[in-house]
C-alpha cells in the first residue's frame, strides 16, 4: 500500500520561517489544492497573531489600555487560554508577556471570547502561535481526507498517518544532528538559543520572564506532544525549568530532551551521553 503513495511537498515563507507541507497521496491524484488550503490556514493564524502586523488581533490587544475589553476570534481565545494554563502550571516560566514586570497575567479571559486588559505589558504569542498554526494546517489536511501528511514550520513539526522521521540539530554544531525522532500522529517542537554565530539576528531567542535574561546559549530542547501548540510552549518551559518540568510534561502527555554539549538529558529525567563518534 505504501508503494502506491507518492509524496508531494511544498514550502512557503510564512511565520518568519520556511513552512513545509507534505502530503502522501495516491499516484495520479492532485494534492496541490489541498496543500494550498493548508497554507491558507497558516496565513490566517499569522494574520491574527503576528505582533508585527498592525492589524492583527495581537496588535489590537497591545493597543488596549488597562481596563479596556475586546472581543477576539475563537482561534486567539484558544491560544490565550492554553497560554494562561501553561503559564500557571509552569509558575510563570511560560509567559506571553515576558517583559511585563507584574506578577500574574496581564489579560483576564471571559466566556464569549471577551478579554480585558488588567495590567500593562506587550503580548507576544511567538512561543506558541507557530505551533497552533501547524495544528490548524494539520486539521485542515485531516478534513480533506488526506491519509498521511506532515507540516514543518522551521522545527515545529506535526505529522499523521505514516511515521515521519526528523533530525534534531546539534545546538552548537549546526552541521551535526544529535537525534532522530519518529513522529506518528503527534508533534515535535525544538527551541534553542543557538550560538550567536549561527543565529545572528537572535530570532527565536528565549528569555527568562521579568529578568529578560537570555537562556543559556548552546542548549536546545525538543518536546514531543499530541499537539504542536503544546509542544511549542513546553519547549520554553523545559529550557527554563529543566528537571522541574516533569509534572508539566505528565499533565500534557508530553516528553522531551535537552541537548547541551555532548550530553542529552531526557525528560522525565534521564541522562544520556552521545557516543564518541559524535565528535
Amino acid at each position: 500500500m505504501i508503494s502506491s503513495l507518492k509524496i508531494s511537498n511544498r514550502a512557503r515563507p510564512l511565520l518568519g520561517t520556511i513552512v513545509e507541507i507534505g502530503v502522501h497521496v495516491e499516484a495520479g491524484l492532485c494534492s496541490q489544492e489541498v496543500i494550498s488550503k493548508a497554507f491558507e490556514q497558516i496565513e490566517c493564524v499569522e494574520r491574527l497573531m503576528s505582533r508585527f502586523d498592525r492589524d492583527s488581533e495581537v496588535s489590537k490587544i497591545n493597543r488596549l489600555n488597562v481596563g479596556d475589553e475586546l472581543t477576539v476570534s475563537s482561534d486567539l481565545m484558544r491560544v490565550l487560554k492554553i497560554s494562561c494554563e501553561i503559564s500557571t502550571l509552569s509558575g510563570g516560566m511560560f509567559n506571553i508577556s515576558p517583559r511585563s514586570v507584574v506578577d500574574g497575567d496581564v489579560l483576564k479571559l471571559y466566556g464569549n471570547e471577551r478579554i480585558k486588559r488588567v495590567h500593562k505589558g506587550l503580548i507576544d504569542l511567538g512561543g506558541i502561535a507557530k505551533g497552533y498554526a501547524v495544528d490548524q494546517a494539520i486539521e485542515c489536511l485531516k478534513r480533506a481526507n488526506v491519509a498521511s501528511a506532515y507540516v514543518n514550520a522551521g522545527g515545529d513539526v506535526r505529522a499523521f498517518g505514516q511515521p515521519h522521521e526528523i533530525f534534531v540539530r546539534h545546538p552548537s554544531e549546526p552541521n551535526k544532528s544529535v537525534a532522530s525522532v519518529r513522529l506518528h500522529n503527534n508533534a515535535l517542537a525544538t527551541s534553542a538559543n543557538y550560538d550567536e554565530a549561527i543565529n545572528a539576528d537572535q530570532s527565536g531567542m528565549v528569555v527568562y520572564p521579568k529578568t529578560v535574561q537570555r537562556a543559556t546559549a548552546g542548549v536546545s530542547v525538543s518536546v514531543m506532544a499530541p499537539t504542536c501548540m503544546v509542544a511549542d510552549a513546553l519547549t520554553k518551559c523545559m529550557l527554563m525549568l529543566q528537571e522541574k518540568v516533569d509534572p508539566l510534561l505528565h499533565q500534557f502527555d508530553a516528553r522531551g530532551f535537552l541537548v547541551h554539549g555532548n550530553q542529552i538529558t531526557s525528560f522525565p529525567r534521564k541522562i544520556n551521553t552521545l557516543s564518541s563518534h559524535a565528535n
Partner: protein
Amino acid sequence: MNDDWFKLIGVPLATLAVAGHVCAAEYLTVEQAQKLMFGNEASFKQSDVKLNRAAKKAIKAASGVSVERRILPTWKVFDGGELSGYFIIDEVIGKHDFITYAIALSPVGKIKQIEILVYRENYGYEVRNPRWRSQFVGYDSGTTLDLGEEVKNISGATMSCRHITEGVNRVLATYDLFLKNQQ
C-alpha cells in the same frame, strides 16, 4: 521511563547529504510553479530582465539589497490574450542556506504568491565552492536538479525567511524600474 522514542545519532549532516539523505529539497519545477500560480490555461512569454551595472546600482538604491545576477528570469503571463501578471524566479544566498523561489506578480506588480522551488541548507563550504554554485546559475526551465530522492527534515533549523524578504524587495524594485512601464 523508556526513552526509545528518539534515537541518538552523532552523524554529521554533511555525511548524510553525501549519502543521499540530503538537507535540501526540491519542491516544484519551474513549470509546476507556473501552472500552480497562474493556472493551466495561462501562456508564458519569457522576457528576462537583463541587469547591467547601472541597473544593479539602481535596484540596490531602491531596495537596499545588492544584486549579483546578470539576468532575472522573468515571464510575462497571458490569459485569454490579456496580461495576467509576471512570473519571476529569484534566488537568495544566505550564510547557511540557498533558496530558489518563484514569485507571482499581478499585472500591476502586486505580490500574488510566493513558492519555494529549491531549498538547500549548507554551512558555508558549498556556497564558497564555485562548482557547486554553477549548478544553479544559468538555470533554465529545462533544468532539473538532482538532489537525491529522499528528503529529510531538520528540526531545530534556523531557517530564516529574512533573506527571502530581502529578495522579494529586490524583485519589487526591479519590477518598478524595468517592467512596470514596459507593456
